[in-house]
């Protein structure tokens, strides 16, 4: 199964198996990865699953839709060029080994 590396605000890395089709937010919540909240359940309403994506994977991600773009405007931690909402990234084989950094605050 493809894996995702979540770098926690503490600097610790959690590596999680993520089934294709599962979002990075859902996988994080299911595996108790601290710092990803997903308060709205993954529907682009709340900005609590913000992550910074490792640059080398950026162009392999699905494009940012209007709903995500709007919410990225109001993330608690600073929005950077590699900011994404982890609820909008579904796992694929191509994303195996993806690394995302979790910001220090989500809300």
């Amino acid at each position: 199964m493809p894996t995702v590396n979540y770098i926690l605000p503490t600097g610790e890395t959690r590596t999680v198996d993520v089934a294709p089709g599962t979002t990075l937010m859902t996988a994080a919540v299911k595996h108790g990865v601290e710092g990803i909240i997903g308060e709205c359940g993954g529907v682009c309403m709340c900005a609590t699953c913000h992550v910074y994506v490792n640059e080398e994977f950026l162009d392999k991600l699905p494009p940012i839709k209007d709903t995500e773009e709007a919410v990225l405007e109001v993330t608690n931690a600073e929005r950077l060029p590699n900011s994404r909402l982890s609820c909008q990234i579904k796992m694929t084989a191509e994303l195996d080994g993806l690394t995302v950094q979790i910001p220090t605050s989500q809300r």
Partner: protein
Amino acid sequence: MADGCVVVGTGQAGFEVAASLREAGYEEPIALVGEEPHLPYQRPPLSKGFVLDTQGMDEVELRPDAFYRDHRIDLVPGERVTAIDRAARRVRLASGGELAFQSLVLAVGAHNRGLPVDGAELDGVVYLRTLDESIALKQRLAASAQVVVIGGGFIGLEVAASACVLGKAVTVLEAQPRLMPRVVAPRISEFYRELHAAKGVTIVCEAAVAEIEGYGGRVRAVRLSGGASYPADLVVVGIGVAPNVEVAQTAGLPVSNGIAVDEHLQTADPAIYAVGDCAEHPNAFAGRRVRLESVQNAADQARCVAASIAGRRAPYTALPWFWTDQFDVRLQMAGLSQGYDSIVTRGNPGTRKFSVFYFRGPQLVAVDSINRPADHIVARRLLSAHVGVTPEQAGDESVDLRKLR
């Protein structure tokens, strides 16, 4: 059992109190007690993704089992609190035990209003609030062809849209002259009437249900007082909820349209708080006491109370916001529009992307956005920060609302 915090209710509000207490560094015991047999779960998907099978059980649960162990939250499902002994600081449980508390949080939610007509008890008349009811609805839908939804509010319309997507013949009966009448402007009601009609849903407003007709104990049709009859093999009733106030009331706590709390979400007993659907609270954005039913209200009130209990007391001041997904259309609401006296539309409703800005006098009080997520997000900021917006600015798309300060 030990002291600490007892949270009654395992919905979004109760879950969030427990989780936020730990996040805030609270070290005392936490018990999270609820009547339902399941792990705490989200309600929004129950009328949408969960019945459509695009979201599974594990996506509906808020956290896996291990979360509660890891955070030392004593989750007690399938248990009902029957009484609060305020003097002894204990709650009594239906199973016979008791839990002592230093702080008690009532996140006891609401229950569906029953339809007060003959035939409401027939097989095939269902309601939707809980996960079990959603599972039952999914099974019923699979075996049904003609679905009548009573109530054209959020839940009714979301169920109607889901049933329509599943290929059912769907009729929505709304008692008022328009859809979602308590929460949106006529312009948005009309948009939704057209949206549903275009998908093949029959919308009947000013529909006074007189009786649900059955045959052999099974629902057969819904008859209106005017005589019109709508055949149905499944009737879904979504006519609103009433707050669960009994335990609070019996304990001598003031209740009205909900458990009465102050701006710190404390009841008349400072050791007892109420949050979420059950809490009637003073809301600055409403300018009066209100009871709100939403994920935002549940989660933000829960965090406010958790902060108080953990020693960082602050009044509740969060902006209310809501959303509803029906077919491929998302309506996002920021603020509370009740009491508005004028509206301005931004964007063109013909494009199915527009926002309605609600004003009371010169003051912007709410914004409803249809497929315009950027408007919604900026509206949340403008309303939260009490930034002045004129009707002219709201209606002029050349004005970048994000730049207003």
